[in-house]
C-alpha cells in the first residue's frame, strides 16, 4: 500500500465479488422466463410442451439474429434503426432476382444460389452506407438510420409494388423447414452465430475493441484501436446479420410480405436493453441479449395462448416491454440512459 495519505474510503479495495456478480447479472432474466412459463403452464398445459418450445425457439431465431447485430452496434456506442427494413428488403431482393416476372420477380431468373448470395450482400451494402454516413461523415445515427429505414422500406414496397412474394424457391425456406435433432436449421444457425460472436467479444481483440470504443471512444483511439474502421465494420456486420435474420423470418412465415420486419425494431431494442446491453455503449453481453429475445418471444406466445384478441395484443405487448424495462433497470442497478 503506497497511498497512505489518501482517505480510506477511496483506497480500500472493494471485496472481490465481481466475477460472480457478472454471471448473475447475465442470467438475471431467467427468473422472469420461469415466471412466464409457470403462468403459461397454468393457462394451458401444452404451453410448456416440446412443440410450443420449438415454436418459441423458431420464432426467436429470426429476431435473435437482428438483436445480435444490433447488440454489436450498441456495444460500440451507436445504434441502427434501419435493421428492421434490411430484414425485409434483403430477402426480397434476393428472391426477386430468382423468381419469374409472373411472380413479381425482376425476370432475371438467376439460380437460387445467386439469390441467396444477394441477401447478405444487400445487408452489407446497407451497413456500409450507414457506416459511411455515421462514422465517416459523422452524421447523427438516429436520424440517418431512421431515414435509411424509410428509404429501404420504400424501395421494397416500390419494387414489389406492395405485393407479398409467394412461390419462393425451396432454398429460401429451408432454413426454417429443415430440421436437425427436432429443431429448425435457423435455430442452429442463430445459436452458432451467437456462440461465435460471444466468443469474439470475450476472447478476441476485435471484441475487446468494441467494448473499449463504446466505453470511451477517445481513450480507445489513444490506446491504438482503429476506432473508425472497426465502428464502420460493425455496421456492415449488423446489416449482414439483419439480412440473414430476414431470410430466417421468411422461411418461418413461408412468404415475404412487403412489410416484413416493419415495427420489429422496438422488440430488437427492447430485447437488447432488457438483456443488459447499454444504449450508452461499452456494456452488455450476448447471453443477456439472447435471454431478452427468449423472454419477449415467450411473452408473445403466452399472449396467443391466453386468447388475447389480436387487436389488443400490440398494446399489451408494448406495456409488457415497458414493465420489463423497469424491472431490468432495477435488477441491473444502473440507469439505462
Amino acid at each position, binding site marked *: 500500500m503506497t*497511498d497512505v495519505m489518501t*482517505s480510506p474510503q477511496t483506497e480500500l479495495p472493494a471485496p*472481490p465479488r*465481481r466475477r460472480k456478480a457478472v454471471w448473475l447479472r447475465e442470467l438475471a432474466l431467467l427468473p422472469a422466463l420461469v415466471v412466464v412459463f409457470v403462468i403459461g403452464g397454468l393457462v394451458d398445459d401444452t404451453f410448456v410442451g416440446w412443440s410450443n418450445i420449438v415454436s418459441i425457439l423458431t420464432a426467436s431465431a429470426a429476431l435473435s439474429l437482428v438483436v445480435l447485430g444490433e447488440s454489436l452496434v450498441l456495444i460500440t456506442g451507436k445504434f441502427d434503426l434501419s435493421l428492421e427494413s434490411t430484414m425485409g428488403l434483403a430477402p426480397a431482393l434476393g428472391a426477386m432476382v430468382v423468381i419469374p416476372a409472373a411472380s413479381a420477380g425482376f425476370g432475371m431468373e438467376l439460380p437460387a444460389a445467386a439469390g441467396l448470395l444477394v441477401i447478405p450482400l444487400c445487408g452489407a451494402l446497407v451497413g456500409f452506407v450507414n457506416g459511411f454516413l455515421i462514422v465517416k461523415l459523422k452524421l447523427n445515427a438516429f436520424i440517418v438510420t431512421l431515414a435509411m429505414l424509410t428509404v429501404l422500406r420504400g424501395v421494397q414496397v416500390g419494387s414489389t409494388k406492395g405485393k407479398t412474394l409467394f412461390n419462393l424457391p425451396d432454398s429460401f425456406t429451408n432454413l426454417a423447414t429443415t430440421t436437425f435433432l427436432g429443431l429448425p436449421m435457423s435455430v442452429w444457425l442463430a445459436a452458432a452465430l451467437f456462440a461465435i460472436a460471444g466468443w469474439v467479444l470475450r476472447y*478476441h481483440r476485435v471484441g475487446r475493441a468494441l467494448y473499449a470504443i463504446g466505453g470511451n471512444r477517445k481513450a480507445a483511439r489513444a490506446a491504438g484501436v482503429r476506432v473508425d474502421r472497426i465502428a464502420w465494420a460493425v455496421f456492415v456486420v449488423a446489416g449482414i446479420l439483419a439480412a440473414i435474420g430476414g431470410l430466417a423470418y421468411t422461411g418461418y412465415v413461408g412468404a415475404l410480405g412487403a412489410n416484413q420486419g416493419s415495427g420489429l425494431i422496438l422488440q430488437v431494442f427492447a430485447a437488447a436493453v432488457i438483456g443488459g446491453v447499454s444504449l450508452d455503449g461499452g456494456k452488455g453481453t450476448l447471453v443477456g441479449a439472447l435471454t431478452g429475445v427468449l423472454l419477449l418471444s415467450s411473452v408473445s406466445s403466452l399472449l396467443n395462448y391466453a386468447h388475447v384478441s389480436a387487436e389488443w395484443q400490440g398494446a399489451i405487448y408494448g406495456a409488457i416491454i415497458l414493465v420489463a424495462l423497469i424491472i431490468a433497470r432495477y435488477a441491473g442497478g444502473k440507469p439505462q440512459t
Partner: protein
Amino acid sequence: MTALPAGETAAGVVSAHGVGKRYGPTVALHDVSLTVHPGESHALVGRNGAGKSTLVSILTGLSATDTGHVEFGGEPAPPLSRQDDWKARVACVYQHAMVVPQLTVAENLFLNRQAGGGFSIGWKSLRRKARELLDSWDVHVDVDTPAGELSVEDRQFVEIARALSYGARFIVLDEPTAQLDSQAIERLFERMRQMQAGGVTFLFISHHLHEVYEVCQAVTVLRDAKHVLTAPVSEVGRAELVDAMTGEPGGLSVRDAASRESLEADAAEILSIDGLSGDGFRDVSFRLRRGEVVGLAGSNASGKHQVAETVYGLRTPSAGTVRVDGSPLRPGDIPAAIRAGVGCVPRDRHHEGLVLEHSIADNATLSILDKLGRGGIASPRTRFARASQALADYDIVAASAEQPVSDLSGGNQQKVVLARALIGDPRVVVLINPTAGVDVKSKEALLAVVDRVRAEGKAVLIVSDELDDLRLSDRVLVLRAGAVVAEHQAGWSDGDLVADIEGVELS
C-alpha cells in the same frame, strides 16, 4: 485611476476569511483570506493547481466553502441557492465563452429576463435596452450580431457589460489576455482603467506577470492551495513574485536529474523530431537518446501538449517528421507509433486515458490486444495475468485486475494509464501531465516508475505544468507561443525556469 483606500480597515468589495475546499483526498484550497478593496484591480497569481480557480468558484458562488466565510462590502455572502443575489454582487468572465453563440448579443445580455417582467418579449425594447447598456459602458458592438461571431475581445466586453447590468461592480477576469493580441490587450487595459474610474473593481488572473505590473494595484499569490502573500504591486519585485509562486522545492523525494550520472556520451539517438509544425506550434526540432529524459515546459497556450500529442500520433502535423530509431512514423497513425515502440500517457485520464467503467485488465491491455495471442486472440486469462503483473509492477492498489478503474483513486487510475503506456515495452515513452490531480504519494510512485524505465534505457518525453515532474529531465525545453525559446540543463533553478515559462525578464 483611483488610489488605494488609505486604511486597511475599509470594508473590502469582497473579502474571504479563511476559506478552504477539499475534493475527496485532495485539498484544493486551505485557509485562504483575501480582501479586494473598492476601485482597485487586484491580481491573483499562482501556478496551475495553486487553487486560483477554486478560490474564484467560491468567490462567485459556484461552490460552497468548507471553512471560513465570504463577505461582500461587509455583509455576509448570500446562500448558494440565491444565485440572483450573487449575480448582483460578482461575476466572472471566463477564458471560454459563457454566451449562447446562436443568439444575438441583445438576447444574450438579457437571457432569461428578455421580457423584463412583462408577459411577452418586446424585441424592440430589448434591443434598445441592450444598446443603451453597451453604450453606457462604451462597448461598440452591434446588438444584432450572433454572440458566436464576436471576437474574443468583444465577447469579453459583452460579458462584462452583462455582469454590470445585474448590478455587480466586482468582476473576476480569468486570464482575459490569454487569447488576445497585444493591441487588444492594450484596449482591454484601457477599458479596465475607465471602468475602475467608474467604480468597478477587478480581480485579474493572469500568467503574464508584466501585465500584473501594468494594470493592477495589488497582488495576491497562491501556492499549493495556500495563501502566500498579498501586497501592493509597487512593493513587490518581479523576482520576489516568481519566488512566491514557486516557493521552496517541497518535500517531494524525487531524484533530480542533476544528481545522477550524466548520460553516456555515446547513447544511441532513438527519437528524432525535425521541423515539426502543427496546430499551435511550429518548427519544433529535438532529439532523444536512450535513457534520456527531456521535459517540455510552457504555459497552457504554449503548444507543449500539442507537440507531445503529435509525436504519438494523436494529432497530425502539418509539416515535419517524427522518426523512431531512424524510421519515420506515419503522421497521425497511433497504431503505427505503438508498433514502432512509442507508449503514451495522454493528457487527461478521464477523457483519453481510461474507459472508466471497464476493468483494470481491459484498460491495461487495450493497446497490446493484438500481441496477446495468435490471430488476435486475447483471452480473459491472458489479459488478467498481464494486468495482475502490472498491478504488482506499478504498485496499483486494487482488489484485483477485475476491478473497474472507476473504483480506484485518482493516483491509482493514473498508474493504470502509465501501466498501459509501458505494457508493450516501448522504446520511447511520451508522458503528458503524468501526475495531474494525484496526491503526493502517488506522484512519488509515478515519478519513481519513470525514473526506473529511464534507467532501463527507454527515452522519456515528459510534458508537465509541475516543476517536480520536470526535475527528472536531463534537459527541459521551454515553449512559448508554439516555439522552443529556451533550453535548461538539469540543475536549473525554479525561478529561472518559471521566468522563461511566463516570459518575464528577471531584473
